[in-house]
């Protein structure tokens, strides 16, 4: 069961991501070089970027159930089922969820933490409610074709589950009843697409974007962060994983033999005009199954080469909001489809005239695919974590398949915000060093079910402080099936991002000037909304005054929305030190400073980056840097 199964709820509305933007430039972590103007709003180079006083809050805004699928029927008006029009909300008894980057040098796996999701109809405050399992977005691509200055034109999707799901009340809704019955008790699958995000402080959409999504049954044997199924992979230029060659991005299908239905998720694969005006009309689109499997990427086919499973209905008014882009294609009456569907490639086609059809996207060559379920790890020194790979061939488990694993830092690193000069200058640290900071096998082989576990261990004592002024180290780990058909198009986002925390040894005598103040000053620099209005973390008196709340926040688990630091980038050993100090005697009056040893920054070459006008910030800047790096290294997918 996954979000591609039935019954499904579809929702639509807005989300708010009130992220802080000062920490988008890794160089601002250097306390010694920090300047006050780095905290000011700036829509160009430098400064604190477009939201320096961001709170980190992520929440749904005005999200409603706009459609549902039950027994092969699409429902979209209340007379069909009372669940239509109900409100999908977040926690009403605790702080809202938070959205945080893994690191300024890896901003392409931003995770939502501590969010609750709750369905209410006004009468019942929670027909169901559950905890969103923290998840990172994936499949970031240049989906928005035009828009206002500073719009975030990149879009992405989030796939995860709700845990600890509780059902209350009775809404007399057949869809809800069927959903509750179909799903694993205590769980639900949830997937949503985010797009049209506004970064211009003068428009109402500032910090808001559009969201459409799906809630469906979940089964605990399934991966939590993607749906196992048929993987339709867009060909991507070597130096830009965000620009699919034919304008349609990768997506997943699932074949339900019992119901004789192919369910396809176009939710994050079709381009949008601008933030608000819906999908671009790119002509008639068909989903088809090829009669002969291709051995290379195709550009066109003829009428005799495929069986048409049906038109993609994306041009119908309201389709996207009512279905979140998920469409079912019954194939029972398609002549011959049932016979070949299990092992023949799916394609999206556009009539070219006559008998010719353009191939916009096609299933992976040979139908083979591997994905890590969770792909973002935080590792304490000496900790062994890991990921679960799921390999498949035409959606079926691929048993005995070798998966190659190797360091790949192509998609991480850089300043995070371009290479405009700073005064004083600050070196951009290298990522991925020391190379043995994390250890893992070079190959794992899938067992029954097509799954394989890869253990990833941070070395005892952690990676040290290789980045000088910023804690921890980032490691990119690439993975791929060892035997991949030649000419395969691979998803450049399918790699692992690991943040290995540095070790902080507990000093026998923890002092404000020696250990605590440098940490808090950095924090205060990067989160002025907190340091200016709640606790001035750079001032001893202020910290002492607020020690109780600081103890609470630093002591909360990472999954709690009030966890400090909000970025969840601090090692336990450092938090333990802070907590121990907060528990200490803390005399009134600022203690005398003692001479601190400055950390040494490592030198690192930074590629020259030509940033596009108006897209010099945040994720865009991070990606443009990535592209420059890929081009420089001549990387091939």
């Amino acid at each position, binding site marked *: 069961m996954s979000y591609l199964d039935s019954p499904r709820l579809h929702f639509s509305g807005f989300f708010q991501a009130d992220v802080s933007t000062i920490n988008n430039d890794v160089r601002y972590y250097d306390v010694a070089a920090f300047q006050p103007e780095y905290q000011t709003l700036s829509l160009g180079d430098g400064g604190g970027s477009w939201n320096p006083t961001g709170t980190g809050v992520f929440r749904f*805004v005005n999200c409603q159930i706009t459609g549902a699928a039950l027994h092969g029927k699409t429902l979209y008006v209340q007379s069909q089922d009372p669940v239509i029009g109900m409100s999908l909300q977040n926690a*009403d008894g605790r702080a809202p969820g938070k959205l945080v980057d893994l690191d300024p040098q890896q901003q392409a796996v931003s995770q939502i933490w501590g969010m609750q999701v709750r369905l209410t109809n006004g009468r019942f405050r929670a027909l169901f409610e559950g905890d969103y399992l923290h998840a990172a977005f994936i499949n970031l691509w240049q989906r928005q074709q035009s828009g206002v200055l500073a719009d975030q034109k990149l879009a992405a999707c989030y796939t995860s589950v709700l845990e600890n799901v509780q059902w209350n009340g009775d809404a007399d809704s057949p869809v809800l009843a069927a959903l509750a019955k179909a799903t694993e008790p205590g769980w639900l699958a949830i997937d949503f697409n985010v797009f049209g995000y506004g970064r211009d402080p003068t428009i*109402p*959409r500032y910090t808001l974007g559009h969201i459409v999504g799906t809630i469906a049954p979940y089964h605990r044997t399934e991966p939590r962060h993607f749906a196992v199924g048929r993987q339709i992979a867009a060909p991507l230029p070597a130096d830009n994983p965000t620009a699919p060659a034919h304008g349609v991005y990768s997506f997943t299908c699932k074949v339900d033999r019992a119901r004789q239905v192919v369910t396809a998720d176009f939710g994050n694969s079709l381009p949008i005009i601008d933030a608000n005006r819906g999908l671009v009309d790119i002509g008639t689109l068909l989903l088809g199954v090829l009669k002969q499997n291709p051995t290379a990427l195709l550009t066109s086919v003829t009428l005799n080469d495929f069986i048409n499973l049906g038109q993609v209905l994306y041009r119908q008014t309201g389709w996207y909001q009512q279905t979140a882009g998920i469409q079912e294609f019954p194939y029972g009456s398609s002549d011959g489809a049932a016979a070949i569907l299990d092992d023949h490639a799916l394609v999206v086609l556009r009539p070219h005239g006559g008998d010719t059809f353009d191939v916009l996207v096609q299933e992976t060559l040979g139908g083979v695919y591997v994905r890590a379920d969770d792909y973002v790890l935080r590792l304490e020194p000496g900790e062994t974590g890991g990921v679960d790979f799921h390999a498949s061939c035409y959606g079926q488990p691929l048993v005995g398949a070798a998966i190659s694993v190797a360091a790949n830092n192509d998609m991480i690193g850089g300043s995070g915000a371009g290479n405009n000069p700073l005064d004083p200058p600050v070196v951009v640290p290298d990522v991925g060093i020391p190379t043995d900071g994390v250890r893992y096998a070079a190959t794992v082989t899938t067992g029954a079910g097509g799954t394989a576990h890869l253990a990833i261990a941070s070395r005892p004592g952690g990676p040290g402080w290789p980045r000088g002024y910023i804690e921890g180290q980032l490691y990119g780990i690439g993975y791929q099936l060892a035997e991949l058909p030649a000419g395969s198009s691979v998803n450049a986002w399918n790699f692992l991002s690991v943040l290995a925390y540095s070790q902080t040894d507990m000093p026998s005598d923890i002092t404000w000037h020696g250990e605590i103040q440098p940490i808090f000053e950095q924090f205060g620099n990067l989160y002025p909304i907190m340091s200016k209005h709640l606790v001035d973390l750079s001032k001893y008196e202020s910290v002492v005054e607020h020690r109780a709340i600081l103890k609470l926040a630093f002591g909360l688990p990472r999954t709690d929305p*009030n966890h400090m630091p909000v970025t969840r980038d601090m090692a336990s050993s450092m938090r333990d030190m802070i907590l121990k100090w907060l528990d200490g005697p803390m005399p009134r009056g600022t203690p005398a400073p003692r001479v601190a040893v400055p950390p040494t920054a490592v030198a690192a070459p930074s590629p020259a980056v030509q940033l596009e006008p108006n897209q010099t910030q945040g994720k865009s800047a991070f990606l443009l840097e990535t592209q420059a790096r890929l081009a420089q290294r001549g990387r091939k997918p």
Partner: protein
Amino acid sequence: MIKLQRAFVTGVQRAESREDLYPYLQNAIELEHATIPPYLTAMFSLKPSNAGIARLIGTIVRQEMLHMTIAANVLNAIGGHPQTNKPEFIPKYPGPLPMSIGGTGFEVGIAAFSKPLLETVFMKIEEPEHPIPVKRALAAAPDQYATIGEFYEAIMAKIRALGDRIFVPAAVERQVLTWFPRDQLYPITNVETACSSLEIIVLQGEGTNTDPMLHPGDPAHYYKFGEIVAGRRIVKRGTGWAYAGEPIPYDEGGVYPMKANPTLAGFPRGSQARTRAEQFAYNYTSLLNALQRAFNGEPAHIDVVIGLMYDLKVMAVALMSTPLWDGNGMNAGPCYEYVTALSAAES
């Protein structure tokens, strides 16, 4: 003189059982809560240049929170059930305080910090039964009104009359006992602990009849607001008191230009101000929902309330920095409304 409808005092006096006291202790919780939104707003509206004043107001707000918690603990101690998660729990601002505190026509609103606000509203709320003259004389209250002090005295007298038997032995587990000093927030198990706790409320709010100071350097609320208005700390002068101590600097430019008495409905749909105000109201509602749990058998849940409280401040600052584009240079402000569903945001 601060006053409330005498009917509430006579109502307490007529109580015959612990159950009869429940509505009055619920009134006390609502009363103590009612002052928090206006005080908080004034505090939130101060920019860092007025951090000194903000800190003084902050100490008052924290004590109001303490008072609300004490009232809830006393209610729990005698077997009652506080309720904070309902729309009526929040007074309508601008409007009268619970129990018609302040008398006919006395309304409290939500506004940015100003000295007149403190003098004409906050000091009136906190006014002692017999204020110690520190500069000026004050008008007497008509007979149909009683003071907040009298109200609490009546509750204490009734608790003494009903005796230790009204206390529920297992109720300590339901009491919130963290986040405040142990000598101010402690288990309520009998007449003595209930009355000494309620005494703290009266004392911190009004001070004693003879001394405005709770502790040296720490005046009761009324006099603390007086200090801010006068711009100087209160000190002893001969046999009396004067606002003649250390200056309390005030930067008039260091206040967010917040439009008074903001309401959700008053902000255009789809505007930044509306979106942020809804977020604030949603968070405030969440806080009251969390408080409901903390006051009803899950006292550890107070940590969640504290987390929401801190988020609330950050949201208030964001809101007060949001221009209304109304031609007057005013910014948005916090809406203390109980919401269950958010309205439409538009692009």
